[in-house]
């Protein structure tokens, strides 16, 4: 429980910091780079090395590469849809989350299971 709380705090600080950095920059396409910042990864990998060892962190980074491909697909679909279809932002961002899940878990099942 204590470890979960530590993860929560470090993750919250890391994600907020990168989001704040993203808010500072113009143009929007450049600020968008911070949407793919390694905020969750930094907090998780650092704690994994301390608690579970380096092999655990290396294994996590392997599957992280696959979910990066999924993140690319998710944000590309979202970008195209928001430019070409009159859709509400909140619904579009949630509606495409299954794209991330399908690509991510699909690649994991094909390559790492």
């Amino acid at each position: 429980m204590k470890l979960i709380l530590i993860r929560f705090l470090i993750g919250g600080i890391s994600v907020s910091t990168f989001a704040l950095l993203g808010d500072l920059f113009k143009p929007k396409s450049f600020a968008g780079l911070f949407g793919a910042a390694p905020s969750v990864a930094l907090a998780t990998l650092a704690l994994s090395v301390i608690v579970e060892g380096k092999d655990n962190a290396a294994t996590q980074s392997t599957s992280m590469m696959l979910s990066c491909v999924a993140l690319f697909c998710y944000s590309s679909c979202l970008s195209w849809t928001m430019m070409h279809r009159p859709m509400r932002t909140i619904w579009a961002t949630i509606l495409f989350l299954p794209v991330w899940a399908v690509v991510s878990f699909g690649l994991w099942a094909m390559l790492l299971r």
Partner: protein
Amino acid sequence: MLVKVDATRVKETRWHEFAVRFLLGGFITAFAGIIGHKYGASMGGLFLAFPAIFPASATLIDKHEKEKKERAGLNGHGRARQLVSVDAAGTAIGSIGLFAFALVIHETIRDHNTWLVIGGATTVWAGVSVLAWYLRKRTRSSFKRAWFARFHGGP
């Protein structure tokens, strides 16, 4: 357009909007840890590139742009959608940098100092992301110039 630092949007952001990002970020980090503990590191690693705060950030962009246009007596729906689209395109480019980050960690963490590897991987993320953003911008500009010259008889 050159990259500029502009604190206006930070000033427009309310404390509860910061709190939402903090909570979502904390939640997904804790969740990734729980999944990793229960189903193995390989499965937990997938959540390290989960678009955790993207819905919250995109909604903020949308809301702030609409408010800005409404203050000027305009309808900001279209412009807000365009900005979210451009922001998402930036995130797609950033995911190339994030892939490079994960690759550096994967290749070097076993044999080198942890903090050096994490610092180096973060630098690689920033470098690759900015380079990819710059290359895309340059390619798009040349494509636009070529298209304009072809159809409008430019230089």
